[in-house]
């Protein structure tokens, strides 16, 4: 029970950090278009393997009470 609450609190703190970090000064954060070499790597994509995600989501959807949440993400090389 304590572990659950701790994980929950830590997780919400992480999310809050992301929201606050993202919302404040979003316009100034980031990199120049030519500095996306590392971000362009396939391993950096928020969903690096759509097939693994699809297969795992099906397993966890069948075995657990929670579903989904992934949505659509940006990132990558930012080209074009």
């Amino acid at each position: 029970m304590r572990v659950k609450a701790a994980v929950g609190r830590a997780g919400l703190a992480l999310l809050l950090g992301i929201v606050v970090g993202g919302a404040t000064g979003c316009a100034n954060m980031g990199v120049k278009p030519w500095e996306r070499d590392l971000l362009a790597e396939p391993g950096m994509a928020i969903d690096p393997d759509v097939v693994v995600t699809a297969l795992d989501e099906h397993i966890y959807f069948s075995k657990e009470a929670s579903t989904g949440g992934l949505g659509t993400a940006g990132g990558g090389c930012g080209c074009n």
Partner: protein
Amino acid sequence: MAVTSRKGRGNGAGGKGTVRAAIMGACGLLGLAGSRAEATEVRSALLGYTEPNRVSAIEAIVDGNHDFSDGKILNFRLVLDALTGASANGATPASYTQTFTRPSGNGSYQTAPGETPLDDTFKDTRGALSVGLGLPLNRMTNLNFGLYGSGEHDYSSLGGNLTLTRDLHQRNTTVALHGAYFHDTIFPEGGRPDPFTPMEPEGLPKAKLSGDGTKEILDLGLGVTQVLNRKMIVYLNYTYSNVTGYQTDPYKIFSVVDPVTGDPRATDPYLYESRPDARDKHILFGKMSWHLERDIIQLSYRYFMDDWGVHSNTVDLTYRWNLSNRTFLKPHLRYYNQSATDFYRRYLVDGQALPENVSADYRLGDMHTVTYGLTYGRKLDSGNELTLRLEYYAQMGDGYPPDAIGNLKDFDLFPTVDAFIMQVGFNFSLPE
């Protein structure tokens, strides 16, 4: 000036240039002009899932993306799976052999004393197809339409989705708006049992609900991706999901036990479960990718909450260890916990009032799960990639609750369910 350090015959005489241009033009006609656009990337995989003594499944998936020369993208995905084996029917173990009727009504199966009742009737095959089209509205905006359909012997689903993405701040920020709608039809083997009616012995008709069950799902989501620096990117997504219609599991029962012995009561010991016909879900998901110059860490957290009483936390961590620029090893760790739905009861006691909804499906109970996995990936000379993934997944709950009555104190009411997963993947590009 510096221009003189150029090698080669760059400013060649007109003759050479003309012949070269002619050949290159002809090469273009023969489709040998080099890596132009219009590529098709295909990802495929075969997955085996097995819970020793319980369910086993095989799944095959093919996912293709075709880039058109104008920026439009066509996506296509086909999934086929076959399921076999036994899964818990919701009843509790007893101190004697129990007999249960198969969903069709023709046939029965037995459970030894002290064992968790498992129904091994199911052999099911499922197919699912989705098609999507991505249209760039302008350089920074994209609209994606998708259609989805799936079918198996007792269930079908049809749906569509729409996603609008907009890049901002030189693509350092991406905002995505997502909507999806699905219409599902449920037509179980043996028909839909009337909730709270008893499981009848084989050959005897069970009380049924008329017709097929239907369910409507509406999803709405909002996501933001933000590049933090050259090595870090974060993503946050909120989804609201509403499900209305038939959500009961037509194959699940619950035991009504004797208040003293804890064994199933004499008359009508097994009743069919009942779940609410409306469900509101809220999902908050965050993920971060962090490049460490050679390797990559990815960490995600999901918080889920619904009006059935479920609160869950999911933490997922992967470490992509790039052994070389062609091979990688990726350990994976996932931890999940959930609180039970309000209407979850491991069993009911004879004499207590029937709640409005009851389910003994362990997947709706208090539980936590852990997944440990490892993926190995290798890029072949052809540029194609081969992956091998092995995972161990365990679902755990409280098998010995302090308030267990009678003989139930001696039985494991939530045995750990172990599962082994193996996946082979092959990613390749189709020629022009």
